[in-house]
C-alpha cells in the first residue's frame, strides 16, 4: 500500500516547502507518482514511443492551430486571403503553417507506426478490447481531422480534393446523397461547407479526440502496459521498470527528433498555398493528400454498379475485422511468427495500400495529359507563392470601383454626390439616414428626366427636409442623375 504522505518528496531531492503546500491542497504528489510510476513489464523500449509521440504531435497541432486561428477567417471569400496573409505577411506565419500542415502528415505516419507496433506485438490481447476499440475511434478521428483541415485554405487543391471526397461519401447506397449534402451543407460545395468543416476541425473533432485520448490512457493504465512479445498479456511476470525516467527520456528524445524534422521541413520547404479555388475550372485534376492516394486508386477499379462492393462492402469488412480483432483473436500467443493469419492479413493490406499508392503515382506520370496538367497545377501554385501579398478589397471599395468601371458618367456623378454633401442627409451610396430617405432604387420610381426636374425644383416636402434647388450646370446634373439612377 503506497502512502504518499509518508514518502519522501523526491522531485527536488529534499523536502520542498512550496511543493508540500501544493500537494496538501491538490494531492499532486500522488497523481505524479501514479502517472510516472507506470510499470512497464520488461523495461523501457524504443518500440513503445509511438503512442506518446502521437500525443505530443497532437498537442503541437492544437497549439499551432490556435495560433493560426488568430488570423484565419473561415468564410469562402476570406479564407484564402487570410491564409495568404499568414504565409506571406505575418512573422513566422509560413513557418507555423508549415509545422501544422506537415504535422498532419506526421500524425498519419505515427498513427501507422503505432498501430503496426501494437498489432505486431499483439498488445490488443488480454482484456484490452476496449483499449483497442478506443484506439480505432481515435484512428478514425485523426483521419477526420486530416480531411476537414485540408479544405480550410480554400485553394484549388483543397476545394477539388474535398469535392471528390464528398462525392465518394455520396456513393454509399440509400443514405449516400443525404450524407454528402450533410457534409457539404447543401447540394454543392460552398460557404456552408467551409463553415461545417471548420466547426468539425476546430471544435467538435478535437473535443472528441481529447475525450477518447483520456479514455485510451485510462484503459491502458488499467490493463497495464503489455510489454514485450515474450510477456504474458494477462498476467505479466517480467520485472517491470517505471515509466519515469527511462521511457520518459526515450519518448522525449523521439519527440525532439520529430520536432526537429518538422522544423527543418517547415524552414527549408515551406508548405505551399495554391491559387484561390475556382469552382468553374473544369480542367483541374484533383488529387488528395498522400495518405488518401491508395484509397483514391482503389476506387478506380470499381466503376459504376460495382462501386457499392468496392467502396462500401469491402472496406467495411476490413474495418470490422480490424476493430473486432481482440474479440476474434482470443489466443494469448503474441509472437508474430506464430500468428500467420492475423499478421499475414495485416502485412498484406499494408503492402497493398503501399502498392496502390505507387500504381497511382506511376499512372499519373505515365499518362501525358495527366502529367502535364499536374505539372501546370504545381507551377500555378509556385507562381502564386512568388507573388507579393494582395489585400482583399473591402465591399465599400467594390461599389465605387464598379461604378467607375461601368459608366464614367455615373462615376463622375458619384464624386459630385460627395462634393455636394448629398451624403450628409441621404447617406453613403444613397443608403439613407434619419435626415433623408434612401435613394437606392430610385430608378424604379423616377425616370432620369423626372429626377433631374425634381432636383432643380424640389417638392415642398423635400424643401421642408432641407433640400435646396440644385444650381449644378447641365453636364454635372446629368452625371449626378446617372449616378442616382444606377444605385441598387
Amino acid at each position, binding site marked *: 500500500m*503506497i502512502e504518499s504522505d509518508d*514518502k*519522501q518528496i*523526491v*522531485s*527536488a*531531492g529534499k523536502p520542498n516547502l512550496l511543493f508540500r503546500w501544493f500537494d496538501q491542497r491538490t494531492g499532486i504528489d500522488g497523481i505524479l*507518482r501514479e502517472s*510516472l*510510476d507506470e*510499470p512497464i*513489464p520488461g523495461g523501457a523500449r524504443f518500440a513503445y514511443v509511438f503512442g506518446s509521440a502521437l500525443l505530443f504531435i497532437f498537442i503541437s497541432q492544437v*497549439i*499551432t492551430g490556435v*495560433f493560426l486561428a*488568430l*488570423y484565419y477567417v473561415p468564410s469562402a471569400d*476570406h479564407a484564402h*486571403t*487570410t491564409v*495568404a*496573409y499568414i504565409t506571406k*505577411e*505575418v*512573422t*513566422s*506565419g509560413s*513557418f*507555423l503553417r508549415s509545422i501544422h500542415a506537415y504535422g498532419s502528415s506526421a500524425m498519419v505516419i505515427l498513427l501507422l507506426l503505432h498501430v503496426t507496433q501494437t498489432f505486431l506485438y499483439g498488445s490488443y490481447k488480454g482484456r484490452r478490447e476496449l483499449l483497442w476499440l478506443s484506439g480505432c475511434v481515435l484512428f478514425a478521428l485523426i483521419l477526420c481531422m486530416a480531411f476537414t483541415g485540408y479544405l480550410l485554405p480554400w485553394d484549388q487543391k483543397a476545394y477539388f480534393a474535398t469535392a471528390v471526397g464528398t462525392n465518394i461519401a455520396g456513393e454509399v447506397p440509400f443514405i449516400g446523397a443525404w450524407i454528402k449534402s450533410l457534409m457539404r451543407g447543401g447540394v454543392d460545395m460552398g460557404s456552408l461547407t467551409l463553415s461545417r468543416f471548420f466547426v468539425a476541425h476546430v471544435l467538435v473533432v478535437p473535443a472528441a479526440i481529447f475525450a477518447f485520448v483520456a479514455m485510451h490512457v485510462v484503459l491502458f493504465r488499467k490493463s*497495464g502496459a503489455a510489454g514485450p512479445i515474450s510477456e504474458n498479456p494477462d*498476467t*505479466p*511476470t517480467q520485472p*517491470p521498470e*517505471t515509466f*519515469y*525516467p527511462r521511457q*520518459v*527520456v526515450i519518448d*522525449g528524445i523521439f519527440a*525532439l527528433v520529430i*520536432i526537429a524534422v518538422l522544423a527543418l521541413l517547415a524552414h527549408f520547404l515551406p508548405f505551399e498555398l495554391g491559387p484561390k479555388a475556382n469552382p468553374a475550372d473544369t480542367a483541374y485534376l484533383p488529387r488528395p493528400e498522400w495518405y488518401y492516394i491508395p484509397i483514391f486508386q482503389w476506387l478506380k477499379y470499381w466503376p459504376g454498379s460495382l462501386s457499392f462492393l468496392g467502396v462500401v462492402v469491402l472496406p467495411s469488412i476490413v474495418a470490422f475485422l480490424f476493430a473486432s480483432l481482440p474479440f476474434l483473436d482470443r489466443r494469448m500467443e503474441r509472437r508474430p511468427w506464430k500468428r500467420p493469419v492475423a499478421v499475414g492479413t495485416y502485412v498484406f493490406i499494408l503492402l497493398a495500400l503501399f502498392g496502390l499508392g505507387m500504381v497511382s503515382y506511376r499512372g499519373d506520370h505515365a499518362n501525358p495529359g495527366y502529367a502535364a496538367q499536374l505539372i501546370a497545377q504545381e507551377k500555378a501554385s509556385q507562381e502564386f507563392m512568388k507573388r507579393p*501579398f494582395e*489585400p*482583399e*478589397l*473591402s465591399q*465599400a*471599395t467594390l461599389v*465605387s*470601383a464598379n461604378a467607375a468601371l461601368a459608366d464614367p458618367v455615373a462615376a463622375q456623378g*458619384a*464624386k459630385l454626390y*460627395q*462634393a*455636394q*454633401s448629398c451624403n*450628409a442627409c441621404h447617406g453613403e451610396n444613397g443608403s439613407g439616414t434619419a435626415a433623408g430617405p434612401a435613394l437606392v432604387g430610385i430608378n424604379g420610381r423616377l425616370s432620369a428626366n423626372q429626377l433631374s426636374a425634381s432636383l432643380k425644383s424640389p417638392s415642398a416636402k423635400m424643401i421642408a427636409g*432641407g433640400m*435646396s434647388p440644385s444650381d449644378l450646370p447641365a453636364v454635372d446634373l446629368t452625371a449626378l442623375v446617372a449616378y442616382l439612377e444606377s444605385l441598387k
Partner: protein
Amino acid sequence: MPEPQIITSTTANTPSRRSYVGWLIGLCTAGVSAVLALPLVRFLIYPLTAKTTETKWSDVGAAGEFALLTTPVQRSVIVEQLDGWRKTVSEKIVYVTKDGSGQLQVLSAICPHLGCSVQWTGAKKEFGCPCHGATFSTDGKCTGGPSPRGMDSLESAVQSDRLVVHYRYFRQLVPDKQVIG
C-alpha cells in the same frame, strides 16, 4: 498467480539520482519550449510591430500645378486604407490652398461641425458648408457659423514633384483636431 511487482519510487533509483535526472529533463524541456515558443510569440505580436491598420499617402497632383495658386482648388484623391488583410479604396474630396505664410496646404472637405462636404464659393471668396451655414476663409480658418474649429488641414508633402497628402478622419463637434482614423 503472482502479483506483479510494482517498483515504488523509494525502492528504485535513489532519490538524488532521480531528482538529478528530473532536473535535467525539466531543463531540456524548458529549453526546447523556449526555442519553440519564439516563432509563436513573434507570430502573436506581429500587429504590434507591423503597421496593420494604416492609411497610405495619396497623390493629389503635380506640384507645379499648385505653385501659382491664388484661389483654393478642389481635388479628389484616392485613399487606400489597410486593415490587416483587407484594403478599402475610396475617393475623397480635398482642397489645395495656400495658408497665411504662402505655403501649400491641403484641407479636408469634411466640415468639422457635423461632417457635410464644405463648398468653395468663388463669388464670396470663402468656404461655406451648405448644411448649417458654417463659413471659412481661404486658408480654412473659421469665420462664422456653428463649426467648433477651422477646416482640418491634412499632412502633405512634395515627393518627386508630386503633391502627396496623408488623408485622415477627424472627430466632429470638438474644438481641437483629433484623428479618429
